[in-house]
């Protein structure tokens, strides 16, 4: 572990002292038997040792090896945001094409790739990963621990995601962009009609991003259930953590469905199986069932973390604890369950039994109940609080307006007869953008403004933020509200152009103007981001005066998160402190990466946990898995020979080193 000369450590400590701490550590581990333990405050010897223990190596190798949840979380967020911008540019091209009748900015084949790439990128490469990335960054801080439960797996998940996303876009660049819509229905994406390698690239992306999603979900769920700060019983768990837990559980049960579907489709393409081939006993509708059994819950595991953002931002800016905390938790859980009973409402235009469809209509209406319960709790919190109308809260208020509109059209399309009228029309396009942008992107921007100080140590500019909000709010409604009308007038989605005689030209032009305004608003955010990163106002530990644990440490947090793990005695530990309770944990090794495992319900301290060290193997494993997938697309034997390199990488990842074992034995106590 080499420290770069002349630098200052993350805790703001000059390096010579850090080097002294390193010598101390070397002495201790070498056999004096005395281990330096944490528990003292900032600037203590233990803090210096912690800093040395947890800091990544500098340089490229350190960058490649890191398993620090903050670095990986930031990578997720930045990568996903860049793909959000890229997919937004595709949307802008589509809006240019549709701005006037009989337009020829792009041709039909390229247009197919445009809307497929836009939808696929927004759903699989932007929305899910960015929500999980925020969780990777925030959850360990909010529950008061030093890293995720499986830090190497988090790292591997990121690399799988990045390589998958790049491969999809590389395909697009060489005219092999997916073109069968973001839900890739068969037979259009099957071997008969999906010629070339376009659908293969899409199937690989699904495998890689869903593997990422599942790995991160297991990781986050484990952190939440087993690594909460002592005293943070389930009753005291912050609402964003609850939302992340519910979303993770949903991912665990929903994502296998789309992975299975994508693999069956790929088997049809590579091995000539007949799952979706009616001529040989297959069936195409089963694709839709498998896809939407994932696809509908997906909307909710994008939406639920966003609800978590809202429920975190509102109490902070209303200056009071959440009204109906338990009701909000129960609503999140109820939403998680109900979301699995809705998938057929995407299939109302198929020949399923009518009685079955009415069940799904009822379920679709029912999910409005927990959402409404939360909205009432938020209103009550704001009503009885002392409101401070900063940018994060502004985005939350925008979310209210737009989500309610999107929810109302959702109830409309949840009814079979109405859905049959507007199915595959722009009404659905309007509805889904109201729900997804209103329900997820508005809270996400609010969350960016809220947590940017924690991520970077600096504030985003408030004035630019207000401009961005109003441009986004107005631009969004100008772009998407006319689509309701276009849909009712009969304009189908996914057409590359339309005739002047349809009379859709004016509304389409208005929608395009709205898209330009949205683009300007996003650009303003990028400007604000870059400027504030360099010279934004310094934030301090807790600029908003918030009550949750991520604000109990420095901004940005040091590599070890907390100088001593906190002990919690209330829901808002920074607001309410019980007089007679311990305030922090002591006795974890400051010379090795050690954490604390607590019990599931009451978060009683149970076992110490030594985190795995950073290594390059998760990266190598991810690369070999990607090679395996593409190899198996080219030749069927790649399916099994290609498994050998990942197997080697995973074994090397696991194999314990002598140094780790020596450290482990030094600290070992039997259960």
């Amino acid at each position: 572990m080499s420290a770069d000369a002349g630098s200052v450590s993350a805790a703001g400590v000059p390096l010579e002292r850090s080097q002294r701490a390193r010598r101390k550590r070397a002495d201790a581990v070498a056999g004096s038997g005395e281990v330096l333990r944490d528990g003292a405050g900032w600037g203590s010897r233990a803090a210096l040792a912690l800093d040395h223990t947890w800091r990544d190596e500098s340089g490229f190798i350190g960058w490649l090896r890191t398993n620090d949840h903050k670095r990986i979380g930031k990578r997720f967020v930045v990568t996903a945001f860049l793909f959000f911008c890229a997919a937004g540019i595709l949307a802008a091209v589509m809006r240019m094409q549709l701005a006037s009748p009989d337009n020829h900015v792009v041709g039909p084949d390229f247009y197919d790739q445009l809307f497929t790439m836009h939808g696929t990128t927004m759903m699989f490469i932007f929305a899910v990963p960015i929500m999980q990335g925020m969780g990777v960054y925030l959850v360990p801080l909010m529950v008061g621990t030093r890293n995720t439960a499986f830090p190497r797996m988090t790292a591997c998940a990121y690399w799988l995601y990045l390589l998958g996303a790049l491969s999809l876009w590389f395909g697009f660049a060489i005219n092999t962009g997916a073109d069968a819509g973001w839900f890739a229905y068969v037979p259009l994406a099957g071997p008969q009609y999906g010629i070339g390698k376009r659908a293969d690239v899409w199937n690989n992306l699904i495998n890689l991003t869903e593997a990422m999603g599942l790995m991160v979900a297991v990781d986050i769920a484990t952190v939440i259930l087993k690594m909460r700060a002592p005293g943070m019983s389930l009753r005291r768990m912050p609402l964003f953590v609850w939302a992340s837990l519910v979303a993770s559980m949903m991912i665990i049960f929903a994502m296998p469905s789309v992975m299975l579907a994508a693999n069956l489709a790929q088997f049809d393409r590579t091995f000539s199986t007949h799952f979706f081939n009616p001529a040989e006993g297959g069936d195409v509708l089963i694709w839709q069932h498998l896809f939407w059994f994932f696809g509908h819950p997906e909307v909710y595991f994008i939406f639920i973390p966003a609800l978590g953002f809202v429920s975190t931002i509102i109490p902070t800016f209303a200056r009071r604890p959440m009204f109906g905390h338990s009701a909000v938790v129960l609503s999140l859980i109820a939403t998680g369950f109900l979301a699995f009973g809705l998938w057929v409402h995407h299939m109302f235009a198929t020949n399923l039994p009518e009685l079955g469809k009415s069940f799904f209509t009822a379920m679709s209406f029912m999910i409005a109940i927990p959402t409404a319960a939360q909205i009432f709790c938020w209103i009550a919190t704001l009503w009885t609080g002392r409101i401070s109308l900063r940018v994060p809260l502004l985005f939350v208020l925008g979310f209210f307006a737009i989500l309610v509109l999107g929810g109302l059209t959702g109830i409309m399309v949840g009814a079979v007869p109405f859905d049959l009228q507007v199915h595959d029309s722009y009404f659905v396009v309007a509805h889904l953008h109201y729900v997804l942008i209103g329900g997820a992107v508005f809270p996400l921007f609010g969350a960016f403004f809220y947590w940017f100080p924690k991520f970077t140590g600096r504030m985003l500019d408030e004035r630019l933020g207000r401009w961005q909000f109003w441009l986004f709010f107005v631009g969004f409604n100008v772009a998407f509200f006319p689509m309701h009308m276009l849909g009712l007038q009969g304009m189908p989605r996914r057409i590359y152009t339309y005739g002047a005689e349809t009379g859709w030209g004016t509304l389409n032009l208005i929608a395009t103007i709205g898209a330009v305004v949205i683009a300007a608003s996003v650009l303003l955010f990028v400007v604000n981001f870059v400027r504030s990163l360099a010279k934004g106002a310094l934030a301090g530990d807790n600029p908003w005066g918030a009550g949750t644990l991520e604000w109990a440490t420095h901004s940005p947090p040091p590599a070890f998160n907390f100088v001593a793990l906190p002990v919690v005695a209330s829901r808002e530990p920074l607001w309410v402190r019980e007089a007679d309770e311990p305030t922090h944990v002591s006795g974890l090794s400051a010379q090795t990466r050690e954490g604390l495992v607590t019990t599931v319900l009451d978060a009683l301290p149970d076992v110490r946990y030594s985190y795995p060290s950073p290594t390059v193997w998760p990266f190598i494993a991810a690369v070999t898995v990607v090679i395996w997938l593409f190899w198996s697309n080219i030749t069927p034997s790649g399916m099994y020979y290609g498994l050998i390199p990942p197997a080697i990488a995973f074994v090397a990842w696991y194999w314990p080193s002598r140094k780790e074992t020596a450290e482990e034995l030094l600290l070992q106590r039997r259960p």
Partner: protein
Amino acid sequence: MNTSRSPTAAPADGDAPEDKAMRRRRQSTPASIPAVRRGDALDVANLPSYGFGTRSLMWWGTAGMSAIEGMGFALMIVAYFYLKSRSHLWPNEGGPPDLLWGTVNLGLACLSAIPNVLADKAANDHDLRKVRIWLVVFVIFGLALLGVRWLEFTALNVRWDASAYGSAVWVLLGLHTFNLVTNYADSLVVAAVVFKGPLDGKRFVDVAENAGYWWFIVLTWIPVYAVVYWGPRV
């Protein structure tokens, strides 16, 4: 399970060299005591540095992965019966798979639970000698299971590209085989570490968790066997 909580109560296991090493390690690793209050702090220095079962984070990771894989099996079985309900040719001309090898494997899988349970128990007792013995027995069982699985594929009486029936049977059995092979490879690695690698208490947890994942392989084999072999017969 009945782990001794006192460092001095470790039972003697004979005089083989590894037992001496084991005993030395036991003596150098004192048993844990709960967290204690010291002023404003909660001192956790003497908590155990690892734990078995739900006390281990990896148990939760394995449980999550089992939920994911289990969901995959459940959905594939649903897909099997969905396709069956749509197809006139189920099974196709070749008839259903021969019962022999699949049933043999069902028996083997159930029997493999014995070395699995014993390896798990030995790991919980920190009994290195027994861990090694039962892991070796277990690895032999696994090899037999894999061999018989190969024979199963030869007795399916249908190719994967013959019809949707063939595709469903091959993928269902293939999915289970993929899990079987990965867990078998896991077991080999864990066995190699137990014989060769640097050892500490956490490696016993690895053995126990590997045994836990094997339960998933055995328990999923029962419904998958039922569907592959009896699905076309009902």
